[in-house]
């Protein structure tokens, strides 16, 4: 039984490492600020959550697992809020996204007028 749990938590850890690596690679390879946010999203969601699941399996039924569950919930709520704040700030100061068709960038108000 212990071996199955160990194997499962190893699998989750390795998957987590893989996705964090992928997210980091994406941060380096993608062309601009907005597209890089998407790569960072991989690290935020799958990467950290898989690592936390692996740690929960190791901790078993204890107070540590409850704490890890709390951490994963907080990341679930705060990381998209932070990502949105960054994207919103970039948009507010008029940072133009790379490769987006011109028609998409027209503000909604002038479209109606």
């Amino acid at each position: 039984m212990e071996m199955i749990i160990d194997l499962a938590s190893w699998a989750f850890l390795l998957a987590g490492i893989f996705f964090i690596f992928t997210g980091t690679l994406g941060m380096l390879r993608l062309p601009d600020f907005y597209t890089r946010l998407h790569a960072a999203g991989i690290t935020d969601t799958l990467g950290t959550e898989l690592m936390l699941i692996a740690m929960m399996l190791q901790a078993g039924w204890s107070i540590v697992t409850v704490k890890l569950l709390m951490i994963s919930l907080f990341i679930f709520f705060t990381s998209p809020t932070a990502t949105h704040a960054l994207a919103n700030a970039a948009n507010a100061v008029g940072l133009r996204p790379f490769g987006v068709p011109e028609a998409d960038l027209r503000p909604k108000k002038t479209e109606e007028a």
Partner: protein
Amino acid sequence: MRHILGLGASLAAFWMLLSGSISLDHKLVLGFGVASIILTMFLAIRMDRLDGFPVSIRLSPNLIRYWIWLAKEIGKANIDVAKIVLAPNIKISPRMVRVKATQQTDVGIATFANSITLTPGTVSVDIEDDEILVHAITDDMAAGLIESDMDERVTALELKYR
């Protein structure tokens, strides 16, 4: 007043859960706990976030079902974005699209916008009246979001709150 006492009680319970002990031997640690609870309650009052504003999210079977559905969507989208990043040649076609948000409450719209951002490949950039401006990394992701029933699912969740 009822709200602020409820917040204080839940913060105290949460602090005890995290510290794992409430023994009076560690007076300094206990003091830090009490001080941070009082500070948080003071900030909550100053931010005027107590009257009529739901402090907690009501845990319902529907909310759990939505989380499970969202987790699946996040998993699928993660694999799609990972494929883009790991491909020898990066193939992207970024788009800015507007998605209609049919939610009535602020919490509903925030839940929908956060769900969009949590799903890799789409990030909510701005909220304009009843529409959310979304940056998508490919045409397919933008089309997928517009076709998806995420908006209806969040709205259905919201009606259950009342």
